């Protein structure tokens, strides 16, 4: 209150308007300038436009994954709106009399009939429907790949934890949205999926049958589920998804985009190209590329030809019934969970064989992903802002964990096709299922270990490159008959990319008791943290330091006194050709060397 008084003291109310101007900005006139002036005087939009148009985005192919997701969202919204003009979300039944002969005379719901009409009768309707379906699938794939990029490069670290969680919620809602959209045509495949979904709900303790009866408006299938799914699919979930997406993209603007490590790129800047004109053209153009490719796929590759499946009939089913692929992992979990997980206790039925895979799996997995950034920042104790991304190899444990999660997902996904695998490979489905049960536990462990080793090896390769330069393939013989391969040292820009990372070191738990013998309240948390820290960072490769590089160059010449002479002789022999250092193959690394082969093993963690 007081500040306001100070600012305005001595000024009349009229004087407050003294700054106002009614004149248009000079220059740059014309119709556009006039409209811009009109809008700006009423909204002050020029400030925002200036802020937005000069925003800088870094270039990298992996940053386009999120873009693909964004554009696919726009495409599904456009095509989905088109579809609502013809789709009839009703389960009222009537007999088909349309142009498609094989279905004539068959009783079907209006939902199915209108989908057949969109596909076979409405001109261009099938194209819109298939763009919608393909684009939804591309949306989900792009979200998954975008998540992988964010995870493996550590882009979820401070200050982007909130956006990681918004992204996770989005990815989960998109799965639900996709499942419901797939169910709307009321064909025999999707109807079977909805029936299974009702079975999932029934497995929920205490309230399961109530949830199912409320959602379906009674027993399955009833006549309410398609209209209700329709409202959820076109109104409720899109509103939430668009809202969360907007928050997601605003936070990207606020945080400014992350960038890969490289010369001149720091946590304090962002190096790239401005939105106007470069990114407007590139990103705007990329929208048309995504839309165009989706339209080409939709025009050439049939998806979900429901007129060939036929309408849903409660007693009908086809062999090889599977959900749309993005629900495959949950379906696979259902196929792997053994029946003994269902039991009767206290007079009630507990169906963990269904509940674990169908109800609990997704919340558990998503919660684990959601807490990961906080666990990692707790383990490292790192509270700084990070805008330069990690190269995945430089964080072997995180990369290993991520790959283990992907392996877990892949086994579940494979299990959803256990019947197809059995048929194609002529194997017993029981054996395949049992094998997959073992793999579900074993594969993540193996994949974690292998990935971590590969990362460490790649880091060693980077060190090797920095210390000894690139192999040139030029073999040089000295006067004494020794052979060397000439190595070309990296220039400082290439080198910076390989040495600029930071290797976290494990932390030790502080003393559990203080000098008075009083046990610290956080002792057990500290111990856990130290153990986790060991797990994360015990095996690590540190970046090369200038001293190590100097030492490596020095060791390269086995005989110090001779070295300059050799170099001089070589320069004479190949003038202008030899610009690198000499390295004597296996001899160059001595046992006590920082990078001696004998010490390369670090498997004893």
């Amino acid at each position, binding site marked *: 209150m007081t500040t306001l008084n100070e600012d305005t003291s001595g000024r009349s109310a009229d004087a407050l308007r003294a700054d106002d101007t009614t004149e248009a900005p000079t220059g740059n006139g014309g119709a556009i300038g006039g409209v811009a002036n009109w809008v700006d005087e009423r909204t002050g939009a020029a400030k925002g436009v200036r802020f937005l148009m000069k925003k800088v985005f870094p270039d990298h192919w992996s940053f386009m994954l999120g873009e693909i997701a964004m554009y696919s969202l726009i495409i599904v919204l456009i095509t989905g709106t088109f579809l609502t003009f013809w789709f009839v979300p009703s389960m009222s039944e009537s007999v088909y009399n349309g142009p498609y002969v094989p279905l004539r005379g068959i009783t079907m719901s209006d939902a199915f009939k209108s989908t057949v009409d969109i596909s076979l009768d409405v001109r261009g309707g099938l194209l819109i429907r298939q763009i919608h379906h393909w684009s939804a699938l591309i949306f989900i794939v792009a979200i998954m790949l975008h998540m992988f990029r964010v995870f493996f490069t550590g882009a979820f670290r401070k200050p982007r934890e909130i956006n990681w969680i918004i992204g996770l919620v989005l990815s989960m809602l998109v799965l639900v949205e996709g499942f419901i959209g797939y169910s709307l045509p009321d064909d025999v495949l999707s109807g079977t999926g909805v029936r299974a979904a009702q079975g999932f709900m029934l497995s929920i303790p205490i309230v399961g049958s109530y949830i199912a009866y409320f959602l379906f408006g009674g027993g399955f299938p009833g006549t309410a589920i398609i209209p209700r799914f329709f409202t959820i699919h076109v109104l409720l979930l899109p509103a939430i998804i668009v809202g969360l997406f907007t928050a997601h993209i605003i936070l990207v603007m606020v945080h400014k985009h992350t960038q890969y490590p490289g010369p001149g790129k720091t946590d304090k800047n962002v190096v790239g190209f401005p939105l106007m004109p470069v990114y407007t053209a590139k990103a705007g153009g990329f929208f048309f590329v995504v839309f165009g490719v989706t339209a080409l796929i939709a025009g050439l590759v049939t998806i979900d030809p429901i007129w060939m499946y036929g309408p849903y009939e409660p007693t009908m089913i086809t062999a090889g019934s599977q959900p749309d692929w993005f629900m495959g992992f949950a379906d696979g979990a259902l196929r792997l969970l053994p029946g003994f997980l269902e039991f009767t206790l206290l007079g009630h039925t507990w169906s963990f064989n269904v509940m674990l895979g169908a109800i609990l799996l997704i919340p558990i997995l998503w919660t684990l992903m959601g807490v990961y950034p906080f666990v990692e920042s707790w383990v490292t104790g790192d509270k700084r802002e990070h805008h330069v991304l990690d190269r995945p190899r430089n964080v072997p444990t995180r990369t290993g964990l991520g790959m283990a999660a992907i392996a877990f997902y892949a086994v579940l996904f494979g299990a959803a096709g256990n019947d197809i695998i059995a048929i194609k490979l002529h194997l017993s*489905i029981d054996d395949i299922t049992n094998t997959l049960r073992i793999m579900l536990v074993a594969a993540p462990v193996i994949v974690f270990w292998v990935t971590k080793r590969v990362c460490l090896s790649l880091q060693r390769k980077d060190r090797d490159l920095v210390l000894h330069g690139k192999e040139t393939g030029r073999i040089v013989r000295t006067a004494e008959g020794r052979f060397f391969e000439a190595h070309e040292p990296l220039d400082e820009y290439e080198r910076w990319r390989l040495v600029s990372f930071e290797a976290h070191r494990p932390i030790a738990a502080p003393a559990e008791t203080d000098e008075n013998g009083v046990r610290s309240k956080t002792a057990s948390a500290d111990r856990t943290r130290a153990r986790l820290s060991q797990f994360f960072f015990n095996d690590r490769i540190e970046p090369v330091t200038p001293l190590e590089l100097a030492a490596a160059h020095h060791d390269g010449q086995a005989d110090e006194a001779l070295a300059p002479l050799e170099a001089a002789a070589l320069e004479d022999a190949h003038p202008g050709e030899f610009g690198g250092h000499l390295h004597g193959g296996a001899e160059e690394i001595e046992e006590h060397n920082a990078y001696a082969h004998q010490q390369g093993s670090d498997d004893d963690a």
Partner: protein
Amino acid sequence: MTTPSNPSDKESSVTHDSTSEAGDDRALVSLEHREGSDNLPERFQDPGLPAHIHRAGDSDEAAARRYERQVAALFAISMFATVLFVVSYFAVGNDTVVSLPIIGRTMALHVSLGVTLGMSLLCIGLGAIHWAKTLMPDTEVVEERHELRSPDEAREGAVKILADGLEGSQLKRRPLIKYTLGGALGLFAIPLGLQLVGSLGPLPHTDLETTLWDSKLPGGKPRRLMRDPDGTAIRLSDVTLGSVFHVLPEGIDATPDPNNEKLKAAVILISLQENLIKSARERKWGVDGVVAYSKICTHVGCPVGLYEQTTHHLLCPCHQSTFDLTEDCKVIFGPAKRALPQLKISVDDEGYLVADHGFDQPVGPSFWERA
């Protein structure tokens, strides 16, 4: 690079120290590590952005004009494709079928619309990107970042405004308002929630436990087993050894919700060699080796539609639960726990198969209330 070698400086870089004394301060640790000697820094320094490399179009006007023509050509192709889309929309018939390589026979209208729309959009995109990459400025721009945390002054200001606001509302001094407001806000959603949840659907009651087989036909006669989907009754003599019938109860189309009834009452009728049946109950509930079982999987409710004659196994195509028909349809593999319930059948005076009574337990997936 003639730094004297000093072995003590070259500790192993591939570290596996199990006891590290390092504390929380990462930055400090990395500085302590490997102390530099001989005027070498502990870490490499960022060399800064490399020198910008110009493109052909930046200096060569001929190249730039070539790019301009390429971009314009892409945009022109897009326009052409758009025209083709419009032409296809009006010219190609709904029923015209064409044969394409790889894709095979397909609807001409659909493919022509898809390809022309795709090309129309794709060429706009490719043109714009080509334009941006070859002609628009490609010098990197550096934008500074600022810490996201607000300055202390702003934070204190925000806290003060909130505190002043709370003070001004007198909420602290007037607990009566505080508690009644809390109560009202805590409860206001109940009417809306109640309306929604209460009116969405009926309570399950006994719907999950009962099927149409439990009731007799009007007139008290037991329901016959009818073929699905023809709706014709089945004589015992029709059921030859090894044959399979998909069965629904007689009179199902006269019920208010035939689909709901079908879903629960669907039955699979199979004729086995009677001596193969290991369960006495199963034999007794069937007729001469002809047995009827619920077709609804006890896992999540898919129809158990696949019968393998040689092994007498019933397989659910959804999650591959396998039931052994010779052992009272108990689960021999897969995620289901419970056997398929059996329907007790007999033959009526006219030689048709009828159900004596309903299933002795609920059919379909497990649910909480099921004991």
